[in-house]
Each structure stands twice: as C-alpha cells, then as structure tokens.
C-alpha cells in the first residue's frame, strides 16, 4: 500500500514560562498508508492529539513544531512551508481532514450548518456556490442526516450531539480528502451513537479507499476498528504493531498495564483491576530518560541511562524500552500471579434504600417568554431497592433519567410522586433537622472533578466540612486527625491539606470528592458517573479504591454510569434504564451472559471489547434511529421505534416489569407471553418487586 503521509521525528514544544519550554510531542515518527485504519491510543497528556495537530500545523504560537512531514503529492518537507502557506492550506482539509471531540462546540454556532459545509467544498474543490450546495446536501444524505434539504439551512444548536458529529464528517469528507483524522471523535457520545458513527466512518473509508486515523484512549475501539496501532505515552510512541500482534503479545510495560487496567465486558468478576500506580506525567518536568519510569513495575537502573530508542521486536512490531523483550517476558511471568482477588463482602438482607414508583416531571418553558409548553417525564415510575453493603449499578444512555434519579434520591429535587425510603424514613417528606440527620448517612460523588470542589476552599476544609456540619468532632485536634485519616484512606498525602483544588490533577480531585463523601460515615453513597471524566489508568485506581472502601466500611453504592464494562465490574446487580423507565434488572454476570431486553442486547453489542478476537466473534446488532426526543412520550414502549421485535401491542401499551425468576426482571411483551404461560398469571397491573 502506498504511503500517503510520513512524519519523521516531530517535536512540538510549548513555553512553561519565559525561559523553559516543554515538549508535548518528543520525536514522534509515523506512517499512514492508503486505505488502512490506524489507531493512535494513549491517555490524555500523551501527545496523541498534539501529534495529529502538528502534522497539519494547527499548533498556535507560542507553540512550535519541528521535524519533517512528507505528504503524497507535495514534494519536500511540508513543515518547511509556513502554517498559513498555500501548500499547507491545501493539505489541511484538501488532503488530510480532521474531526474533533466535542460535537457541541466544534461547529460555528452563528453560521448555518450548510454554509459551513459549503465553505469547505468551495475552498478545496473550487465549485461555484450552487454546485457546492448540491454536493453538500448529497454529503449530508450520505452520512445519514434525515431530509437534508430543510436541515441545510438550520443552525448547529438545532441538532443533537450525534447529528452534529455526522455533519462534521460530511463537512470534512465533502472536500474529498485522502486521510481522515478522528481525534477522540466519539468520546463525548453515547455508546450506541458511538458505534453508529464509527461504523459509518468504516463504511465510508472502505467505499472511498480512505485512510483513517482514530485517535482515542479507548482500547475497545482500537480492537474493533483499527488495523495498525501506535501506543503513545508522555509524548513518545512506546509501541506500534498490527492489531492482532499487539493485543496477543503486548511487549511494552505501559501497553500491558493499559490492557490490565481496563475492565472488560467479557472478563469475570473475580479479579481486581491492575491499575498503573502514580500520577499521569506532568508535562512541565518530564525526565530525560524513559518517561514511564516512575510508574513502570519492571523499572531498573538501566532505564535511567538515557533516552531509550524505538527498536524492532518483531515483524512490523516496534517497542521503545530499555529492557529487552526477554527480560520483560520473565519479569512479567513473576508478577503475573500476583493479581489481587476481589475482596469478599457480605451483602446483608436488610434493605438500605427503597424507591417506590418514583416519578419526576420537569415543565418545559418555550422561548424567552417562559410559557409552559410541555412536560418532561425524566423519571417515569421507577421502583428499586439497595441492600446494605451492596452495589446497585444503573446503566443507560444520556437522557434516560439516571442522573435525575440520583438527584431525587439525594433529595436535591423534590420528586413529583413516589417514595424514597432510606432506613424506613421517606426522604420525600423529611424537612429541616430530620432531613439533615438523614443526609449525614447518605452522601454523593459527582462526575466533573473540576466543578464539584469549591475553588476557594483548601483541600482540608473541603474534606472536613461535613465533620463540622454534623458535629462529628469535638475539637480542633480530633478534626485535624480525622481529616488526615480521610486523606490517607483515599490515598492522598495529608501534607496537601492546605492546597487549592486547582493544584490537584483530575484523579486526585475525585479522591478528594470521595474523602468528602466518607467524612460523615455514610451508609450509602450515590456515585453519579464518578470516573467517566478520568483517564483509563486513573479510573482503575478509583474503582479499586471504591471496592476496597465498600468491603471495609460496609457502604452501599448506587453506581450510575454509561460505561457498561465498568458498571459490570463493580456492581452486584444492574438496572438498565431507557427514557425514564427501568427496562431490565438482573445480577451483573447473568445480565451480560444472557440479556433479555432487546435494548440491553443492542447496548451490550455496541460496547467494544479490548480483545480483537473476542470482539470479532460477538454478534453485532444494528440499532436504527436515535433516542426519541424527551418531550413526546411514546404511548407504548419507549423503545418500540427502534426495536426489531416491535409488535403492535408494544405501540399501544407500556410493558410493566415482570419477574423472570432468580432475581431477573424485564419490561417487554416478548417475555410477557412466556411469563404468563409459565406462572399462569394474567397480565396484572401490580409491579414486580425489584
């Protein structure tokens, strides 16, 4: 296959202050051949995005890019031409197109969607306006946007996240580039939408013999879609190989660590994750020698002797490590057996939290005049219970009402109807003193570590605040001791007590959030997407921390997330939600082995497994259409619009949760008939006990 783009020893530096500069990308060389899909994988701060941006010279001053980039059709080093030169501008968009992570902010809000697509066409294909418009509409149809003629004139704010990413793809491909770089293109999307978008990119690449670079931190995506993979850490490529070669015999300790740290859908629940210890690399002061030295379990003196080079360890397989392949192999053998087992925890029968037919409606105000035009049934009659010491996982895509459920349970919102019984007391009716005492036993961990800590408060006072509120300490000495203990429990150095949140990394901040939640010795913690904003290696550390704490302190978790593999790893039982209703509930293992509800099946099939062989073998379910808008409540089953087995009964009547034996429940008419026959009960209206 012909090499389209070759980058040699790219170094991109940014100023730390007037004197020193740091290299975000420290000598990266890579090749892109026609028609292949390349995976560029690494955590945030590994320089994967900066590398792709450097190739297109999208780095803004004061950043500087050195090295050589050769692009087919342009002789000589394209870096030599200025960033604003005609040649480079032809490459950008014309030869190499790029789509970015955040669909919500990647399109210009004040220009119509069509005009932005036209702009790309007219710049590169030099077509007149009318023709460019026709071509744009055709591209919109190609990426699956319904009735593109009318939507051509609409603004980005009128599209959903998934739709906007399709528009980005249409815009880039409209200029017929040879290479498409997808920089974390689906990270912000739901699992099912992510699958649809990446399948679309894969089909378009096949049709147009397009080279695609998937830049991501999600090993699953790489396993499913990429042909060749580069693994990056601290600004260097640490390992590169064909997909199967890399997944079957990973050599570099970091690659190995990543594979062990990522929870797998098909993995059992007996072993804890093996996190990569320590902090992510701080770009300001990177060591001259191997950057992974601090976190590498196999590090030796040899590693610090100077920069280690990329050497060929097999056919098309390159590794950048001071230790030889064999040394790494036997070290790994010794450490292999030491994987920790999941601590055994006792789940008592006593019910800690019981939610009975919870309903939460939000009025919608239309336009600036605030007339009420409709109602959103965010939570539409949910009943569930959590035993003391148990972890109940709640899974569902965005808009299914899982966060609203968390807020109702925490009484941040007053539920429209239904009861929330915490140790028998209905939180819904509690007020004042009694609510405050109940709240000490129930705390919450938030998703965004940056906005959940008061920027003006020191770490110590953040963690200690619940102590003061509930008067759990008598005097200053006991307060300090307790704060230090809490910091130590979550693995933070107590001397960081008087630092401000902005001086901590994302992972450390989430640990502060956990410490704060633990301060009032709660019986139950509601975790609202606690790890989705963190890096993979840090996620594993936080998950293990939560598991250990639960075993030791007997705390119940209501664990809410959209990453199914993490939820499977940590939960005892899992609830699957769709558009405000519970569609299925089952123990973790059994849900993944034999999902009942069609939506659960589709959801599970959309999640890629970080092992190419297993992933290839799994059955792929095509999920049509999009999540219906929250405002028009479908009469029957909310999923029937996208369900392959939809019957006319589904369209008229809403299915109730039916008990399917050994703790499993499902709300779907497919199982109604069998359940009916098996138990002989007519379709009663009473609810199955979740």
């Amino acid at each position, binding site marked *: 296959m012909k090499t389209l783009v070759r980058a040699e020893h790219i170094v991109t530096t940014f100023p730390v202050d007037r004197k020193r500069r740091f290299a975000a990308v420290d000598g990266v060389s890579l090749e892109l051949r026609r028609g292949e899909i390349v995976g560029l994988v690494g955590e945030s701060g590994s320089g994967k995005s900066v590398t792709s941006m450097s190739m297109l010279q999208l780095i803004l001053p004061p950043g500087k890019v050195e090295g050589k980039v050769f692009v087919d059709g342009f002789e000589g080093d394209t870096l030599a031409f200025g960033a604003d030169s005609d040649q480079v501008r032809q490459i950008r*968009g014309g030869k190499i197109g790029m789509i970015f992570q955040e669909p919500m902010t990647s*399109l210009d809000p004040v220009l119509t969607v069509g005009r932005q697509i036209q702009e790309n066409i007219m710049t590169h294909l030099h077509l007149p306006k009318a023709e460019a418009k026709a071509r744009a509409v055709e591209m919109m149809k190609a990426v699956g946007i319904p009735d593109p003629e009318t939507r051509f004139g609409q603004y980005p704010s009128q599209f959903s996240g998934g739709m906007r990413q399709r528009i980005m793809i249409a815009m880039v491909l409209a*200029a017929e580039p040879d290479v498409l770089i997808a920089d974390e293109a689906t990270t912000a999307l739901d699992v099912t939408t992510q699958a649809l978008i990446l399948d679309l990119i894969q089909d378009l690449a096949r049709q147009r013999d397009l080279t695609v670079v998937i830049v991501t931190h999600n090993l699953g995506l790489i396993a499913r879609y990429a042909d060749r993979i580069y693994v990056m850490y601290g600004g260097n490529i640490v390992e590169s190989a064909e997909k199967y070669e890399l997944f079957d015999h990973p050599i570099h300790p970091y690659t190995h660590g990543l594979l062990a740290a990522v929870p797998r859908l098909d993995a059992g629940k007996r072993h804890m994750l093996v996190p990569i210890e320590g902090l992510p690399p701080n770009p300001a002061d990177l060591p001259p020698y191997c950057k992974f030295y601090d976190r590498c379990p196999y590090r030796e003196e040899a590693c610090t002797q100077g920069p280690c080079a990329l050497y060929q360890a097999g056919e098309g397989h390159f590794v950048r490590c001071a230790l030889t392949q064999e040394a790494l192999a036997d070290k790994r053998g010794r450490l292999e057996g030491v994987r920790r087992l999941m601590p055994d925890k006792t789940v008592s029968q006593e019910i800690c939290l019981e939610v009975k037919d919870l309903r939460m409606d939000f009025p919608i105000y239309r336009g600036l005049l605030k007339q009420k035009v409709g109602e959103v049934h965010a939570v539409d009659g949910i009943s569930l219970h959590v035993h003391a010491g148990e972890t109940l996982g709640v899974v569902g895509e965005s808009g299914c009402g899982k966060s609203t459920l968390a807020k109702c349970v925490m009484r941040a919102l007053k539920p429209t109807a239904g009861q929330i019984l915490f140790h028998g007391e209905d939180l819904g009716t509690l007020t004042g003193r009694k609510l405050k005492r109940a709240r000490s036993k129930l705390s919450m961990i938030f998703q965004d570590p940056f906005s959940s800590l008061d920027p003006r408060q020191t770490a110590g006072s953040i963690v200690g605040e619940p102590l003061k509120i509930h008067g759990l300490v008598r005097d200053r000495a006991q307060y300090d001791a307790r704060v230090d203990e809490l910091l130590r429990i979550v693995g933070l150095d107590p001397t960081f007590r008087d630092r401000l949140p902005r001086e901590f990394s994302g992972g450390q901040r989430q640990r502060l959030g956990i410490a704060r939640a633990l301060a009032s010795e709660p019986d139950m913690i509601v975790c609202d997407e606690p790890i989705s904003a963190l890096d993979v290696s840090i996620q594993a550390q936080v998950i293990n921390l939560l598991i250990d704490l639960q075993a030791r302190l007997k705390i119940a978790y209501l664990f809410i997330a959209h990453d199914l593999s993490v939820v499977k790893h940590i939960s005892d039982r899992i609830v699957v939600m769709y558009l405000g209703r519970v569609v299925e509930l089952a123990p973790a293992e059994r849900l993944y082995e034999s999902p009942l509800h069609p939506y659960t099946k589709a959801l599970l099939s959309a999640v890629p497994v970080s092992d190419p062989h297993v992933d290839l073998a799994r059955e792929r379910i095509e999920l049509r259409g999009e999540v219906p808008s929250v405002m028009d409540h479908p009469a029957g089953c909310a999923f029937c619009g996208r369900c392959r087995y939809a019957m006319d009964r589904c369209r008229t009547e809403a299915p109730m949760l039916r008990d399917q034996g050994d703790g499993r429940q499902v709300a779907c008419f497919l199982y109604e008939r069998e359940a009916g026959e098996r138990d002989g009960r007519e379709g009663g209206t009473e609810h199955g006990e979740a």
Partner: protein
Amino acid sequence: MVKYISSRIGQMLVTVVLVSFFTYILVDIMPKDPVYALYGPNITQEEYEAGYRALDLDKPLLVRYGMWASKVLRGDWGTSYKHHMQVWKLLAPKIAVTLYLSVLSAIVSFAVGILLGAVTAVKRGKWQDTVLTFLANLCASLPSFVVALGLLYLFCIRSQLLPTSGFTWPWVDFGKHVRQLAMPLFALSLSGVASICRQTRSSMLEVIRQDYIRTARSKGLRERVVIVGHVMRNALVPVITLLGNRLAYFIGGAMFVENVFSIPGTGSLMVQSINFMDVPVIQAFVVLSAVVISLAYLVTDILYVAVDPRISLD
C-alpha cells in the same frame, strides 16, 4: 419574534412611566420654588398664592402627577416657564439634534472600537497591542470638554480650518454640516472607543480559543478568512450589548460637547431648566430621554437575539 418585541415594548413603557414618576418626585423635592420661576421674583403675596394654586401645588403629589400624566398622554407637555413656549415645540428640534449626534458618535466609536479591539486581539502581545491599548485608554481618560477645547484651539484659533460652532442638517447644506460636525463628533465618540475596544479584545480572545475556530482552521481556510468569517462574527455578539449602554452615555454626555461647539442640543437647555427650575421642561426632557434610552436598549436586545441563533424565540 413579534410576541417578544411586543412584550419588551410593554416593559419599556413600564420603565418610562416609572422614570416619569421618579423624576416628578425628585423635582418636587428640589428646594427651589416653581412659583418664583414662573412669575419672577417680585410678585405680591396674592399673586404668589394665585400662582401657587394655578400650578396646583396645593394638591397632593399623586394627584398632581396624575393630572400631569393625563395631560401628557393627550400630547400637552405644558409651556416652559422660562421660554413661554410649548415644551414640545421647544424640545423636539433639540432632542433630534442630540439624538442625531449621539447615534452618529455611537456608530463611529463602535467602528473604531471594534477595529482597534480586533487588531489588539489578533496582534496580542506584540507592540501594536500595547500601543493601541494605551491609546484607547488615553482616549477614555480625557474629559470630552477638554478634548473639545483642544480641537477648537487647533482647528479654529490656530488654523481657522473648521467653523467653530452651529449645526445645520445634512439635507440643508451637506458641506457645512460635515465641516461643523467634524470636531464635536470626534470629541464625543473618542470617549466611547476605549470601552468598546476592551470588550471586543476580550471577547475575541475568548472566541479564538474555542473549538469551532480550530475546526475552521483545520478546513484550510486562510487566517484572514478565519478571523473575519468566524471569529469576528462570534466576538461581536457580546459587543452588541454595549450599544444600548453607550448610547445612553452619549445622550447624557453630549452636553459638554454641545456647550463648547454651541450645538443646539438638549445639553445646555437641560442645565438651564434645572437651574431655573423650569419644571415642565425638566419633566419632558427626562421622560423623552428615558424613551430614547429604553428604545436603544430594546434595539440592542433585539439585535442580540437576532444575531445569536442559539437563543430560540418561538
């Protein structure tokens, strides 16, 4: 859109009514005696009492306000104590002049301000940024009447280039109009430039860091096209909000320039009427200015909503 505008106009009317009521009270508290203002100082006690009753000063405040408001609604703004003219006939041409000068100054200061702001944002850190920011701040820190006097000295006393004073409508004699308006316009709009420049600069710096600008660049557009096509359009949205506030400032501040270049605006009239306690003129001036300023804010809101599609109106 129509529903939005009509409700905003409703709010505007409420504001104007509140302004008129507040002004009525304010004027009533002022220590000077309107009877002397109308009838002059040396009048007999009987005349004083007749005048007192004629002005309904013996009735309670609310009743007086009601009577005044009802007359105004019928279009009768009363006669000026000092000029013995229908207030409306006295005030209308002057408000037209001040409004014309203010709107023109707003346009000029916005044009120059945005230009300066854009250049300092694009050339951030370079010498242009420092120099232009310093210049913009210098303009803002000179009182408008000092600038006016300086210009007068330069162009009239030293070099006799421009006429010193007066105002003629452009359709009357365009050449004279332009020559007469050059200095006052420059003096008045100078003060507005700095704040607009600073707002443009900070909103442009904000927009340049956004993702969609990186997307625009990744489409291979020329840097100039990115700046003008994408950055400026987004950066101007917050700058528009300044329009209403700047216009209100100009209407208030135009007086100094009018005084120096003896332009027949409302400026000097307003000072006299307050000193002379010419109640109907004060009332009319403040209420009419309030209407104009509220209109300016209304236009700003509508422009803001029209330009930014993210705000849905339906």
